[in-house]
């Protein structure tokens, strides 16, 4: 209850400050819109379906890109974790590559794939693959050895061992890495979409700038934040809670 009250006070103050600054008209409204303006832009964007289309296109891309990252990253991470040679050689490379912003792959992606969806997907994959790989590698190492032994002992081997034992056993240790990978994928996507006529949220954002329409720019920024937050809150928080209950990491109520 108290927490809710604090939330309300904080956001009301923020909202009030924004309204105040906008109403003072220090800057012209097309540079500093009012909350109502942004609200109208949101309404209009959903009315003419342009936001819905943009959300659908962006979500589709991020799901494909992130999905590929997760599958590849798990295979790579598992390989690196279970092979001493790969661990010594690739391990360091992976960590150093992570300091490279994924959008740096954009010029290469353009040359390799051309100005199309595949170039965007490539950037998304490069953005999240490393997080997932490193998380999987780490998770595989942190995972108690006994699960793998018990699994093999009970007749699991090859893909079955991975799918029924190693993957679920390492999940609690990789869920934070998966979450980080998602955040990187989402950011990379929006960045890449801003660079090219792509129908996605990134492009809608840039269109607002081209039309000198700050209301719609901020409206789309809200959308991007909201989607990122929702996926984190629903998918990953739910996954964490589920794992905690299953594994008994928190006192079961």
């Amino acid at each position, binding site marked *: 209850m108290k927490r809710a009250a604090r939330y309300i006070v904080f956001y009301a103050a923020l909202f009030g400050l924004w309204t105040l600054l906008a109403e003072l008209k220090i800057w012209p409204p097309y540079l500093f819109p009012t909350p109502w303006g942004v609200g109208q832009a949101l309404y209009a964007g959903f009315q003419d379906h342009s936001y819905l289309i943009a959300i659908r296109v962006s979500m589709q891309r991020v799901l494909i890109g992130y999905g590929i990252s997760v599958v590849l990253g798990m295979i790579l991470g598992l390989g690196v974790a279970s092979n001493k040679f790969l661990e010594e050689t690739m391990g360091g490379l992976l960590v150093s590559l992570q300091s490279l912003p994924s959008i740096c792959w954009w010029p290469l992606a353009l040359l390799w794939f051309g100005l199309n969806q595949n170039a965007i997907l490539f950037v998304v994959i490069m953005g999240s693959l490393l997080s997932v790989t490193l998380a999987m590698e780490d998770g595989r190492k942190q995972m108690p050895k*006994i699960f793998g*032994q018990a699994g*093999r*002992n009970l*007749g699991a*081997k090859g893909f079955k061992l991975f799918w029924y034992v190693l993957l679920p056993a390492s999940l609690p240790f990789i869920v934070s890495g998966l979450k980080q990978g998602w955040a990187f994928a989402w950011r990379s996507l929006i960045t890449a979409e801003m660079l090219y006529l792509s129908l996605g949220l990134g492009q809608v954002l840039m269109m607002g700038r081209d039309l000198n329409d700050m209301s719609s720019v901020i409206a789309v920024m809200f959308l991007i934040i909201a989607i990122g937050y929702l996926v984190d809150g629903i998918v990953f928080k739910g996954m964490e809670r589920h794992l905690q*209950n*299953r*594994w008994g990491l928190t006192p*079961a109520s």
Partner: protein
Amino acid sequence: MSTNVQKFPSQFPIPGGPAAGPVLDPRFPAHIGAPGGKIGPVAVGRPIRAVSPQTSKVGLSDICLSYRTQTGTRLLALDHINLQVHPGEFVCIVGPSGCGKSTLLHLIAGLQPQTSGQILIDGTPVQGPGTDRILIFQEHGLFPWLTVGQNVEFGMKMKGVPKAEREEKTRYYLRLVHLAKFEKSYIHQLSGGMRQRVAIARALATEPDVLLMDEPFAALDAQTRDLLHDELERIWSETGRTIIFVTHNVREAIRLGDRVVLLTFRPGRVKSEFPVDLPRPRQLEDPTVARAAREILDELRDEINRSLEAEYNEGVKPHVEPGVEAGSQL
């Protein structure tokens, strides 16, 4: 490598016992429901067992295992282990910590290759893990992401047993360990003793011929352990499995085993073998069990002293395993 064999005669001959009465197979369940349960003496004779290696369930010949330590020197962990285990036999392996007794079980389970020597199951060499021998770990190794029922089902699922049969057998084995009500529970909701019972059910559900048990009850409190001793003995009698049971607790070994095998401290060698001819069921606190344990402990103590010495010399803080300490307070 000298192996001396000693015999413990039954101290309290029972009317109709092994000497006089008919030879009963310990697997024969007739005596299980004997009135008075574990209090009344129960006549159990030893089945006639062939000794030739061909009929051994598990045959270890000249098993050696060495590995490279961090400093680069090679350490011999197991040195020419020879052991024949007969079908349906309950063999306990005791030894000080560091004698490689757990490692030996991992080798038999096929989770790790030996450096030299041969492990035969029914005359066939072990090549990797197989569901004909299931290892039960000290830390149970149950899968926390699965329910109790799914854990028990796991081995059958890997083998490709049809779903209906899996469910039926899961229920059967959960009933066998008295956990039928907990089929839908998750592992963390169970007590330590219950977890170990699930582990036993999970192992039995793949219908292995050989159960390998690696100090399965070491982490449990005394009451739970007593209870599980009774249950394990009952299950062994009912299912006729061959059991190789590793423990550092000599009295536990005599409580359960048909035979106790003592390993030496690093490198692990078979020091002596002690057939246990006490009537079943036995109790940990039986004077006969205590007497039998004392003789093994005398031999074991030398090995423990050697292990302590080695730890002093290596600059490691010595420790005595709780079970060994408890055992020495007979």
